[in-house]
């Protein structure tokens, strides 16, 4: 279904992503782990075409999406929804409009400019908000919501796009444990119910192990691990995280497992 072949992305001399290949045969929930600066975000941004890859191919249903231009590129982005660490909603617009913006790609310029959403679109957006427990905030401005709420609105916007693939770039890194769990459960639910492939950058190991069917470890822009979560040994994980291992293992700040949060003091 999705085939990433030898993707590289260089920023001047820095190899952010170096010769990465990933093959996704069947719909699955994939977690990408690695320390900060390992190239996780850049990889997702290349898949969504927010950044252009330096070399390589990404095949989705046997089409190289890196060749897409203009309209095709926008349509690919519509099919490949993205969720961000900082939610990336429009703060001054209300929640309902924010969700409906997921439909922009299918709207004509005139209809979009005049904010003429159809009642079906409004219903669809409200249904999604209802599903993720955000219905009561529909008419509030996005900026008045908490981080966890904003992220759920962002998920609604992503679902509004009718995506074939969802990319989540550190979706829970700025959330408290409870909201982090809600967001991860939502993503898992989307995958389970609608069979959409979800690729999720995660900073903490236990989250990745708990929610993903497959874990990809990245280090210095390269893939160093790609297998089932159960195959990921502690030693391998320590190697992937390097100096950030303690943080990633404990995951006190961004972990989804409230009860297992174990505050070890390293004074």
């Amino acid at each position, binding site marked *: 279904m999705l085939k990433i072949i030898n993707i590289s992305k260089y920023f001047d001399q820095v190899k952010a992503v170096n010769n990465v290949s990933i093959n996704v045969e069947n719909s699955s929930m994939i977690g990408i782990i690695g320390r900060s600066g390992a190239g996780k975000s850049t990889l997702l941004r290349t898949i969504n075409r*927010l950044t252009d890859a330096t070399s390589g191919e990404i095949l989705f249903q046997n089409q190289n999406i890196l060749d897409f231009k203009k309209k095709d590129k*926008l349509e690919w*982005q519509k*099919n490949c929804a*993205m969720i961000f660490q900082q939610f990336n909603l429009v703060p001054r617009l209300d929640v309902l409009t924010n969700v409906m913006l997921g439909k922009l790609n299918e709207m004509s310029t005139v209809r979009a400019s005049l904010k003429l959403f159809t009642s079906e679109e409004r219903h669809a957006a409200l249904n999604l908000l209802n599903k993720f427990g955000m219905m009561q905030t529909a008419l509030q401005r996005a900026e008045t919501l908490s981080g966890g709420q904003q992220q759920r609105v962002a998920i609604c916007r992503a679902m509004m*796009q009718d995506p074939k693939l969802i990319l989540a770039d550190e979706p829970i890194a700025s959330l408290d444990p409870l909201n982090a769990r809600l967001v991860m459960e939502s993503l898992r639910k989307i995958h389970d119910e609608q069979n959409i492939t979800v690729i999720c950058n995660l900073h903490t190991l236990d989250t990745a192990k708990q929610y993903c069917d497959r874990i990809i470890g990245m280090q210095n822009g390269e893939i160093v691990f790609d297998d089932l979560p159960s195959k990921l040994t502690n030693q391998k994980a320590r190697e992937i995280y390097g100096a950030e291992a303690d943080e990633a293992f404990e995951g006190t700040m961004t972990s989804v497992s409230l009860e297992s949060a174990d505050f070890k003091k390293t*004074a």
Partner: protein
Amino acid sequence: MYSDNILGFETIEKNLKAMAFKRLIYSFISILAILFLLSSGLTIAEENNAGSFQRGLSKFFDYPVDLFKEAFESGWRWYAYVFKYLPDLISTINMAFFSTLFGAIFALLLSLFASKNLIKNQYIVTLSRRTMDILRSFPELVIAMIFLYLMGKSELPAVIAIVIHTAGALGKLFSEAIENADNKPIEGLQSCGASWWQRVRFAVIPQVVPLFISYTLLRLEINVRASTILGFVGAGGIGEALSAVIQFRYGDEIIAIMFLLVITIISLDYFSRFLRGRLIGDNK
């Protein structure tokens, strides 16, 4: 771990002191530079002054005192003058409204192409910026006088002049506001497959609209004054009336017009504050 922190604090402290010292030096140099410019400017002014500065100073107050005396002596007639000049004032305000509106529209169009975060092509950005520079580099008075010469005495040359200047001046402020806008919503919409215009419409404009409104309202205030001044060179409105009564030294009428102008500016200020509060609604 703990001792590391203390060392860190010491280094930061040292760097902070170095930074503070550098800032102190810079401030000192700037103050010296300003003092130098000020004193040299005053010297030049003194050298070029034909008469005595002090004699001029006493005359400086004679004129307004005379004006007020005349206005006071004219008694009730003064109020009639206020109404006499009201149509002229309305015509001036009309000029200002019209030219601010059109100036702002042109400014908006120019500013979109002058913002680096919206246009990746450096040449278009530079071209738009230089265009705005040129548009606002000529004072309204100069442009108006050229157009008055070409088109004859009417209000249109003044409007054209103000539109040109407003487009350049507002355009620069607009494009700065756009460049300071948060990139995250723009990227969010880009990842949904929204086109360039859709990103501008839904991610940029909602963010910058409060600033755009207050800049435009401020410009409206400036343009009321500008269109008054342009009246002096024959563009009609209250400026032309003012220029006439000043020439004939009708003190009471001058005061009446001045009164109208001050009231207009003050009410515009209140109006813009009200409008801004209403449209933005988050000045809590």
